[in-house]
């Protein structure tokens, strides 16, 4: 009896155990924190859709060299406790190798944990202080070696806009010092580029005016628009997003401010422009990808990703496309890791450094070429600058320029 048991059952069990461990090895877990219902959901849901669709699309294409990505999307509603507990759950129970995160709240709450656990986090929080992985700049409070993002930091984007403004000013044949003003709430996200950008504007010869505080919550901003008018600035950096920007544009239109608005990356998209309507007059905003209906061949892949997830194929915001880029950069680093010792967090981090000026396969013209280095996490130093204009019920968007910034030492992490 015992013999037959040994002969028949045990090998079976062994095979079952082996095959189980084999299948277990063929998936890796990637967590995804999204904001679908919280205060930043206005843009967060599009970015999150981009990530979610791309993760499932990667599996449809056969995964990372045959390794499937197991994933879970959690709406943490921009709440720190939920972000922490989900992170811990994924880390201890699912053996997470990388995470796609969202905003300042979750990214900064996890900043120490991910270093200890060696889990790279790709976020959409483009704060400059996440770009200094070795704390080279004395201004950096905390080194963030496992934080990555696809994009130019808020500070660099603002610097690029200021540089454009300088050229615009000279191009118009104006003389004298142009005025520059920061318009945004007194919160970490609008404040992130405030000092860095003002410094650079001064360097370029702008007359930097005292910042005007405008709430992140939509409201009647006529009083603030009057203050903007009183500053006499010709260029204003809009640091807020969503409904607040719409309110600002509408209020300032009523007041009649004669200022060139330049927004941050989250403050300019088709939904904002449509809501603001007639107020959109030469509104300048940055983008790090082309737009949905641009004539770019490789956008077809992005559209395929959306199609596979039953999304509306006629339009998605550029935040969606940025989500796709962020995920595919991670996927490519995972592929490198798979070929160089296995998909672990530390290897994925190395995979990010493997190439310079690189674009995920098949996305030429969609994502901009990016480089990460062990001592410099400024992925992009190039920003495309666009202009939107209201045109009888339609919004006309045209590219003004593409500004490439030097990778200055003193700008690292700042």
């Amino acid at each position, binding site marked *: 009896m015992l013999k037959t048991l040994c002969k028949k059952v045990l090998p079976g069990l062994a095979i079952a155990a082996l095959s189980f461990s084999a299948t277990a090895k063929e998936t890796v877990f990637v967590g995804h924190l999204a904001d679908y219902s919280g205060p930043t959901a206005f843009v967060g849901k599009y970015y999150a859709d981009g990530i979610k669709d791309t993760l499932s699309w990667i599996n449809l294409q056969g995964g990372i060299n045959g390794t499937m990505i197991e994933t879970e999307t959690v709406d943490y509603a921009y709440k720190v406790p939920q972000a922490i507990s989900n992170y811990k759950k994924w880390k201890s129970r699912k053996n997470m190798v990388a995470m796609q995160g969202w905003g300042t709240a979750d990214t900064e709450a996890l900043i120490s944990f991910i270093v200890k656990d060696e889990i790279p986090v790709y976020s959409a929080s483009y704060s400059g202080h996440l770009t200094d992985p070795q704390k080279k700049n004395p201004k950096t409070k905390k080194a963030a070696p496992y934080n990555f993002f696809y994009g130019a930091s808020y500070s660099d984007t603002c610097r690029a806009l200021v540089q454009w403004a300088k050229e615009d000013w000279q191009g118009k044949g104006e003389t004298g010092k142009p005025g520059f003003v920061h318009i945004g709430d007194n*919160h970490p996200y609008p404040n992130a580029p405030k000092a860095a950008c003002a410094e650079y504007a001064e360097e370029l010869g702008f007359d930097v005016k005292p910042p005007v505080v405008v709430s992140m919550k939509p409201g009647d901003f006529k009083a603030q628009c009057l203050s903007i008018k009183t500053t006499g600035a010709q260029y204003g950096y809009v640091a807020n997003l969503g409904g607040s920007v719409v309110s600002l544009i509408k209020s300032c239109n009523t007041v009649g401010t004669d200022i060139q608005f330049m927004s941050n990356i989250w403050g300019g998209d088709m939904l904002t422009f449509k809501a603001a309507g007639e107020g959109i007059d030469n509104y300048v905003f940055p983008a790090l990808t082309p737009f949905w209906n641009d004539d770019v061949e490789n956008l077809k892949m992005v559209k395929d990703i959306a199609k596979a997830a039953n999304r509306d194929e006629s339009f998605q915001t550029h935040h969606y496309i940025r989500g796709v880029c962020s995920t595919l950069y991670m996927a490519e680093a995972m592929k490198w890791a798979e070929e160089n010792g296995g998909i672990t967090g530390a290897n994925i981090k190395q995979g990010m450094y493997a190439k310079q000026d690189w674009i995920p396969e098949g996305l030429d013209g969609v994502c901009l070429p990016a480089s990460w280095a062990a001592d410099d996490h400024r992925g992009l130093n190039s920003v495309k600058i666009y202009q939107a204009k209201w045109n009888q019920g339609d919004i006309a968007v045209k590219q003004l320029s593409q500004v490439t910034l030097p990778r200055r030492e003193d700008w690292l992490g700042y």
Partner: protein
Amino acid sequence: MISLSMRPCGDFRTSYKADNQIFETSTIRWLVVATIIALCFAPLVLDAYFLTLFIQVAYLGIAALGLNILVGFTGQISLGHGAFFGFGAFASAWLNNEFGIPVWLAIPLAGWLTMVVGMIFGSPAARIKGLYLAIATLAAQFIIEDFFARAGWFSGGSYGAAAEPVSLFGYTLDSDQSFFYIALFALVFMYLWGTNLMRSRDGRAFVAVRDHYLSAEIMGINLNWYRLLSFGISSFFAGIGGALYGHYLGYVSAEGFTLMMSIQFLAMIIIGGLGSVFGALLGTIFIVLLPEVLESVVALIAGTGLLPAGSVAESMAYFKEMAVGLVIILFLVFEPQGLAHRWRQIKAYWKFYPFAY
């Protein structure tokens, strides 16, 4: 002070000492001690997920107890508790980074600093009460939040502040397993302190101020002082909770200590039971676990494949947010006296089982 009402017949106390016991019976005392000893072994069996939930309960629970001392015991109101919590977190990181004070000492010092700030913002309580006081403390919330964003020397402004992990005798306690013990120690220590405070002269004065301030004054209680003291103690607890939070995360960001957090603290003590030390803990556990439980329900429903894939996560997300609100409303309707009251009823039921009267 432990539940003066609802004492079953036959349970007589013949001395003040017996009346003031922390634990009603020795069985309860031994059960509590056994639970704490059992918790000491928790890091050996539980994974990081459960440990992090416990740590969350600990630092939020300490702050919630502070608010319960102010609202539940003294009858004041504060809408700025979240900001005091944040002040504690920044203060502890600041004391450690700027002056090199070791973290284990910086945490209580941050509590004292927060106490001072709390007393400053609580000083209107000397003159106003009710809704007016609520609005005055609301101002504290906004002023302190703005201070975090502006005071670069203190909070690092929009860059936030790094908070070193706790080091004791050369060991760095930066994992969930090791920080668990700090959280456990702080929780037990602060709750014992809170319970003891309520048995003291000051604690009785708080309750007197709440129940009838005129009578309290006639009995010789200095109303202004006790209202102010209550604000101070409440902020002290918030500061300790916040400091633990900061050193657990290793980084403090000016985002997150919003009005929503203050409201959440109020929700904790209302659900747990106003004027109950144990209730503050129960309410915190409830608020921390509710989204986690709903999360797993959502995952379960999505996992069955009954609903079309793709949109499930999004639609479930909204369902989850609404469910949190719904559960809280149902709770207030059916259990207005909080979890602490329900807990006493359950205890009473089992005490006399099966011959309940």
